[in-house]
């Protein structure tokens, strides 16, 4: 039995065999290339493909894990567009006639080494980013298949010198019990990703991990930062007990999340998930989603040369209804515009793509595209609980035209004697301020509303949240935003309609008491946010939430409202902590407090 000590970077205990993660070494030979123009063209092509991969990865990680984790890949995107890096590569290719891959690796390594030499934890992580991003382009240029990277075949503790974000994101999660790395600190990528995945991790365990044999029995203690190699029976028993306690508590939290969301005084609200494909539908159920509040359909339309056929779309939607059974599933029609490249949609580069020809505007102008999707949705809804939702509605005429198109699709299906859902509920996204202000009018045509806060905030505050100089104006707690939300809910309820929310705000613990108090009926969020949301809802009576909302709505600034919301959330009961089981004999002397990501960290 042997103890290795590192930093507990993500809490929890894993017990299982070690899997020694060996990187597939990509050997890049130095090769002379006389045709510099050709090599540079290869670089440009490789970069383009890498950017597409990273964008997809950032999107996936954002949906499945969180925005803090997605930011890692967004930073890598910025690096691949760095003028000094590209100049250095160009110089090696044109003046020294070096081949594309070698030039890229040489230049990238020089920048990475410069950052690593500064001996700073933050910059060391950026050095790892440069290397990870460059390796991705090199693999593309060499035609090395990413999936060839071998992961464990049975559930194991991953032991590695270091893991890049791409390594971690590429592992089959059902085979990973936890992570142990030789290098890295509490803010390293492995730490951030492991916390996002809810898996224990010990980082910075040093060179000693090289002595861990493949498949050796390991205990990984992410709370105390300890790894036990080949534990004796007594030690194993102590940890098994502790693991069992944690598992019971987790199972309790998940089981609790499986029951419907109910306020302390027995009032039902719906907690649903935002999803993008079949895999996320399954995850949604595991996390306790009562339905899907937003199925984004863009995934069917991106990265392809032709419009997906009705059959393709039907199969994709039906696969998701098969997972959801009779739970409600809201399918949002295509929400795409000039910021994306979709060759077959006739999109043009626009000066202001977010104020341009997109989403429902584009669909209404191209009935041949819209009809295909509406037919597929109507068919998928046959004997299922499917609802359709139209994005970016600004005006009631648009809703009427959408409903007309829907009736046309129904009539056609009827003629063809194809089964479909005849009484499908029709909702709209409320994300344009005009729609929020005139919600009473829209409520006469729509069966339900779903408030898209991400865009509602950007449009209302006239700020692009990705523009760092104005992103401070992106304030979900701004009194203007809260008034719009209150107004939308009030108008809908008056007309006997229900209101959901599918923006990020719906899953934000600080916002939930306020939204509950304003009368929101459905909260739709990323699956992993569900248990906490249900817990908050369950610890509050509707009356108390209402009083809190009424009080808060009188405050003049977002900062004051947020402070008030923080104070309020603190007064709610917190879940019981892990029962204390003594493991102090094993590890307490070197136990370091586990880092918790703070709001400040996330801002980075």
């Amino acid at each position, binding site marked *: 039995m042997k103890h290795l000590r590192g930093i507990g970077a993500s809490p929890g205990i894993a017990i299982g065999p070690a899997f020694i993660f060996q990187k597939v070494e990509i050997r890049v030979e130095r090769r002379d290339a006389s045709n510099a123009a050709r090599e540079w063209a290869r670089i440009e092509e490789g970069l383009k493909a890498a950017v597409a991969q990273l964008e997809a990865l950032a999107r996936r990680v954002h949906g499945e894990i969180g925005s803090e984790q997605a930011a890692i890949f967004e930073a890598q995107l*910025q690096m691949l567009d*760095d*003028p*000094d890096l590209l100049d250095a590569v160009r110089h090696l290719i044109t003046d020294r006639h070096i081949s594309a891959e070698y030039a890229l690796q040489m230049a990238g390594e020089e920048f990475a080494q410069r*950052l690593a030499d*500064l001996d700073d934890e933050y910059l060391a992580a950026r050095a790892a980013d440069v290397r990870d991003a460059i390796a991705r382009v090199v693999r593309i240029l060499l035609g090395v298949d990413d999936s060839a990277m071998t992961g464990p075949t049975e559930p194991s503790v991953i032991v590695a010198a270091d893991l890049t974000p791409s390594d971690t994101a590429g592992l089959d999660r059902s085979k990973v019990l936890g992570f142990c790395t030789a290098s890295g600190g509490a803010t390293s990528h492995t730490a951030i990703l492991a916390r996002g995945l809810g898996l224990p991790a010990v980082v910075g365990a040093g060179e000693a991990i090289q002595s861990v044999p493949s498949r050796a029995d390991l205990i990984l203690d992410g709370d105390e930062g300890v790894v036990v190699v080949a534990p004796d029976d007594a030690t194993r028993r102590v940890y098994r007990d502790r693991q069992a306690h944690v598992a019971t508590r987790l199972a309790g939290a998940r089981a609790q999340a499986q029951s419907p969301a109910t306020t302390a005084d027995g009032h039902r609200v719906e907690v649903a998930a935002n999803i993008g494909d079949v895999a996320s539908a399954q995850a949604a159920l595991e996390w306790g989603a009562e339905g899907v509040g937003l199925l984004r359909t863009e995934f069917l339309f991106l990265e392809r040369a032709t419009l997906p056929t009705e059959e393709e779309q039907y199969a994709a939607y039906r696969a998701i209804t098969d997972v959801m059974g009779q739970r409600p599933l809201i399918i949002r029609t295509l929400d795409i515009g000039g910021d994306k490249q979709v060759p077959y949609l006739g999109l043009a580069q626009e000066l202001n793509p977010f104020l341009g020809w997109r989403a429902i505007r584009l669909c209404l102008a191209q009935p041949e595209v819209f009809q295909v999707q509406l037919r597929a949705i109507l068919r998928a809804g046959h004997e299922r609980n499917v609802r359709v939702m139209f994005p970016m509605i600004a005006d009631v005429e648009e809703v009427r035209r959408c409903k007309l198109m829907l009736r046309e699709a129904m009539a056609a299906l009827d003629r063809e004697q194809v089964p479909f859902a005849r009484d499908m509920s029709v909702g709209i996204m409320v994300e344009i301020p005009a729609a929020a202000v005139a919600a009473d009018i829209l409520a006469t045509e729509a069966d339900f509303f779903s408030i898209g806060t991400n865009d509602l905030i950007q449009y209302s505050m006239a700020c692009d949240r990705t523009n760092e*100089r104005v992103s*401070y104006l992106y304030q979900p707690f701004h009194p203007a935003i809260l008034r719009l939300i209150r107004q939308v809910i009030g108008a809908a309820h008056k007309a006997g309609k229900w209101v959901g929310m599918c923006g990020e705000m719906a899953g934000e613990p600080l916002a939930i008491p306020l939204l509950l108090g304003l009368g929101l009926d459905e909260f739709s969020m990323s699956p992993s946010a569900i248990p906490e949301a249900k817990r908050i809802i369950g610890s509050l009576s509707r009356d108390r939430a209402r009083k809190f909302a009424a009080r808060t709505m009188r405050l003049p600034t977002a900062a004051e409202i947020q402070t008030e919301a923080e104070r309020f959330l603190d007064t709610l009961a917190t879940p019981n902590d892990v029962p204390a089981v003594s493991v102090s004999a094993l590890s307490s002397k070197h136990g370091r407090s586990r880092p918790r990501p703070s709001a400040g960290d996330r*801002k*980075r």
Partner: protein
Amino acid sequence: MPEIKVAIQAPVGLHARPASLFVQTAKRYKSDIRVIHDERSANAKSILSVLGLGAGKGAELTIQAGGDDAEDALAALRSLISDNFGEPA
């Protein structure tokens, strides 16, 4: 060549969000812009080079710009830094 001298007050130094803002601002100008810190010099439009300066909190920087819009660029960078990168005080 016009130049200014500034000190970085952001707690994280010229890293993370401040570095990203700094580079985004520099990229809006045509002029060549260099940042000098402790005898190291970096292209202000390159995030990797700017991070490579290792300019922490309190670092004193010299920024030089050459080109038609050099004065505007320096003024913009100066106000970005003196506003503490838009972070509330």
